[in-house]
């Protein structure tokens, strides 16, 4: 058999300045104001102060109205695109599976808004939101979820494994917790390359116990790796309540044992998440090591699929392991409604514009669904490819 030989790596250092994310620091805020064209609204200092009082002191004032609107739009994309998937599943005959992220949108968007395009994220089974926030294409994602030949993974992987290395997306992963270790490894690679990238891993409250997290945390702490672990504490591991199987209430405490800073944040508040993420990102970029961020949140749907859900209705009710009342309480804290109210009250958006965006996103979701539907299925014999970089493996069924 032929082995494909790797090309020798060349060191490609990304200069500190070439930022293409929203990485505007407090110090550069006044400067960037000067360079803004007409039509871009900024949060006034008064608003920044009120936001600071509400969310903590640091970064919100660095966000332009455009960026804030993008964040709102992205949250909607996740919400409406996944709601569409839920409806497709309920309609029957769906060519795939999904662990819906709805309810947790503030986390993906808050974190990824603090990242550059060349930063890495490693994601888990409930990762659609992370990928959309990092720039994933709705159509190609849905094509992959339905195992089409032109999906992100050519139909091999499906929902659980959507990957786009070119966007820094190291992939969703079906093994709980693995993302933490791979991101920490990527963070070590950043040290070797000498770039100022960051590697972020997303994991649920269930992702702390297998050694993936332990190994990542120790290495990141010992060698100050640019690693950020985002723990989305939605209270459940399938139906198991984390409080029944863990000895601490705040999972960010796990970080203490490794000498890592652990922060707890309201995961339904996109600006709070952004603030903490931005802080952690700047710290890591400056070479000051890792942060663990625990975001308290709740998932609106069942662990998997669309059990308890209905077409055209938000949320999954009547599940044996949680009360409808608990869900309703959390739905009242809808991160999108909350953020939209803030944007409107602060005049970043008008109600009309906010509603227009909903319509635009809804259209984009319909387009994505049509795109995915129209895509071809994979060729049977392609299953033998891609085991190794070159060649195919032999069939053994005849």
């Amino acid at each position, binding site marked *: 058999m032929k082995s494909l030989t790797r090309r020798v790596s060349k060191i490609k250092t990304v200069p500190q300045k070439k930022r293409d994310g929203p990485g505007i620091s407090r110090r550069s805020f006044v400067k960037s104001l000067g360079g803004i064209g007409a039509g871009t609204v900024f949060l006034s200092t008064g608003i920044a102060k009120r936001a600071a009082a509400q969310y903590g002191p640091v970064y919100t004032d660095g966000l332009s109205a455009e960026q804030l609107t993008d964040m709102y739009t992205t949250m909607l994309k996740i919400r409406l695109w996944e709601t569409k998937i839920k409806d497709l599943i309920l309609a029957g005959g769906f060519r*795939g599976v999904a662990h819906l992220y709805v309810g947790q949108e503030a986390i993906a968007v808050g974190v990824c808004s603090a990242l550059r395009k060349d930063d890495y994220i490693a994601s888990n089974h409930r990762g659609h939101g992370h990928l959309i926030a990092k720039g994933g294409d709705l159509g190609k994602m849905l094509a992959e979820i339905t195992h089409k030949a032109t999906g992100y993974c050519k139909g091999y992987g*499906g929902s659980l494994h959507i990957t786009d290395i070119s966007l820094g997306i190291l992939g969703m992963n079906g093994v709980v917790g693995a993302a933490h270790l791979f991101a920490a490894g990527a963070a070590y690679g950043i040290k070797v390359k000498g770039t100022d990238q960051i590697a972020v891993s997303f994991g649920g409250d269930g992702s702390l116990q297998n050694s993936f997290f332990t190994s990542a945390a120790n290495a990141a702490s010992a060698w100050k790796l640019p690693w950020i672990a985002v723990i989305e504490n939605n209270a459940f591991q399938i139906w198991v309540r984390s409080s029944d199987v863990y000895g601490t209430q705040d999972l960010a405490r796990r970080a203490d044992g490794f000498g890592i800073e652990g922060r707890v944040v309201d995961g339904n508040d996109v600006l709070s998440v952004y603030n903490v993420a931005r802080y952690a990102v700047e710290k890591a970029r400056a070479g000051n090591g890792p942060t663990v961020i625990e975001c308290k949140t709740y998932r609106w749907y069942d662990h998997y699929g669309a059990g308890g859900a209905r077409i055209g209705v938000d949320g999954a009710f009547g599940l044996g392991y949680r009360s409808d009342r608990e869900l309703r309480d959390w739905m009242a804290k809808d991160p999108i409604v909350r953020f939209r109210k803030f944007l409107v009250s602060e005049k970043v958006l008008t109600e009309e514009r906010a509603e227009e965006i909903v319509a635009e996103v809804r259209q984009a979701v319909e387009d994505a669904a049509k795109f995915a539907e129209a895509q071809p299925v994979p060729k049977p014999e392609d299953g033998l490819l891609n*085991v190794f970089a070159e060649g195919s493996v032999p069939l053994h069924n005849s």
Partner: protein
Amino acid sequence: MPKSMGYAILEAIQGEMRRDKLLTLFYEYQTPAAGWSNRSINLEAEFGRTRVRFCAIDEEWIVGGAMGMSMTGVPAIAHIPSMATFIPYELMFNHAGKLRHMTGGQAAFPMVLWADMARRWAFQGGQHADAGLESSYARLAGLKVVIPSTPYDAKGLMVSAIRDVDPVVYCQYPVPSAGPEVPDEPYTVPIGEPAIRTEGKDITIVGYAPQTAEIARAVEELKKDGISAEFIDPRTLAPLEGVMPTIIESVKKTGRLLTSDEGSYTFCNCAEIIARVAEAVPGAKFKRLAFPDAPAPGAPEMLNYMNVDATRIAAAARRLLKA
């Protein structure tokens, strides 16, 4: 309604937990309860949360905790999910499998590693659709590995596994109900005994759990062509000493051995069986069917192209008879 494999297993555990007041189950999220109409089992409700303990997503705890417990005389069942089967592999390898020998017979692990197995499902990726993992356990010294193909065997083998003083890996594939009815009372299916599913004289076919239904269909197809196939289900994969005589006798009679695995080709469990028969029955002819050495793709188009099924088994049998 016949009992499902899942129900039969819970019934086995229920009986043993009633019999042995210390027997304890660790699991993750696979609720140990099942039922329909007026029948139901709920182990947590019956035995309490100390003995029926749901755990964090921590397969090392589930298996390693069970090992530590069993070493001190509290027999244990450790239930782990399929994609995580190999997280506690080192524990089974270096400790459960070795320590009795290394301590001169002192250390005993009366435990069952109840491993969920996946199948080559469509619409999953390779992590959630693997099969054949039992051969990695069957390879380890000091472990017994059983793999039921019917609800009847599932219950009887679980009872045997729990009562065994040695560590047993119990592989549960999701297979449809078939075979004899499952009695309500406890009974054992001995570890180390194969089952001849169909007697025949022209060709020997060996396969188990996920392949049982396909092989059974292939045997029917072959019958139509006047070919009499003998179908043997090993039921125990390690140690094989008790299983091999039946298979070897059969191949001595038929001269031909066809095996079929849902797992990947290389080191699928039937490879070991073929190698043993090749040594014992010179001149026999062999054919091994299996999934390729590839992960399982999610798209059914690719997956079906790669899987073994009844038609392919029957065709391979016909070819082997002509060889």
